């Protein structure tokens, strides 16, 4: 067993004890990444905050299910994503599950974003670095946006993203391709304006 596997196994064991101090330590470690992902996922700061709390409570409750074989962050983000999907299902508003899960919807406009919600970037408080990206991400279909965030912000591998999003790697690749292509064009347009 190498050191990374050893660390994961140790984490899995400590999660089984349901010790809140372990969760507190993990919150400190993953707060930014998880919250950023949830902001992108929900497009709404308030909902992202709710899900942030729910995710950690779920980690406490279901910690014994983490076996240490996969990376903890993949497991954590999967929990957050499942909670978000559950929430969408129960609310049945704004975004259809199809649109979220595997739609290859319109490539521009707000087709892929939750409707009638402001840009995540508008909702993220002032003083944060987002510059030209503000608004551009909203033009992306939702699955592409999520794939881009997971790949380039969270630095997950394609395999991990595929597992997390429950789609084949080829789908992840095509979502990233579409996302970058749109983002690149949007940035070029904004440069010309």
């Amino acid at each position, binding site marked *: 067993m190498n050191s990374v596997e050893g660390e994961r196994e140790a984490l899995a064991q400590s999660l089984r004890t349901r010790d*809140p101090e372990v969760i507190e330590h993990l919150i400190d470690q993953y707060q*930014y990444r998880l919250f950023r992902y949830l902001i992108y996922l929900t497009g709404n700061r308030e909902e992202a905050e709710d899900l942030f709390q729910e995710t950690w409570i779920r980690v406490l409750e279901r910690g014994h299910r983490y076996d240490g074989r996969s990376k903890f962050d993949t497991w954590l983000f999967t929990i957050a994503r499942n909670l978000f999907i559950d929430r969408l299902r129960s609310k049945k508003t704004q975004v259809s599950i199809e649109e979220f899960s595997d739609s290859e919807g319109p490539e521009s406009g707000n087709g892929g974003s939750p409707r009638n919600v402001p840009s995540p970037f508008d909702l993220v*408080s002032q003083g944060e670095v987002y510059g030209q990206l503000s608004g551009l991400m909203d033009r992306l279909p939702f699955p592409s946006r999520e794939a881009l965030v997971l790949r*380039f912000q969270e630095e997950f591998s*394609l395999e991990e993203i595929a597992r997390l999003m429950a789609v084949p790697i080829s789908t992840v690749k095509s979502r990233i391709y579409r996302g970058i292509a749109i983002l*690149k064009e949007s*940035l070029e347009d904004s440069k010309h304006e």
Partner: protein
Amino acid sequence: MSEDLHRRAEQLKIDSMAGGISAPDLQWLGAHLEGCPPCAQRARAIERAVRTLRSVTVRVDPALLRTTRMKVYVRAEDLNRRGARRLLLWTSCATSWVWMAACALFLWHGFERLASQMGIPNWLWQAGFGLWWALPLLIVGIVLSMQQPAVNNERDLTAGLD
């Protein structure tokens, strides 16, 4: 140069950013970008898009962290309390089963004698005996089902921590 080659260059550039490409593809891409200024410009735009994406940071409200930690502690305490209660319940259930198993023969005869004295039909006292055995499990079931609404109430209470 064919349009397909430019498209391939763009695809490879994105693939190289997303997950890496093979050495021959990388070599081909490098050679193509050197000889094709529009594609080189597109490649720079792709790099810029990814760089911009990576530059976004998000601030987490300290109040959110405090509330989350508090909720985690409250929930952990609740889970521990319920775990201990459940352990106690199962222990008493197991103890009563052991005790019942130990005196099953006496009980059977006791039920039989009582039934014959009171004129109770065989099927009825035998069903009663079976029910006597299932009683601890029934009690556990009732207690556990009563705990479920309590959990929901506790969730509502922690919602007030915001």
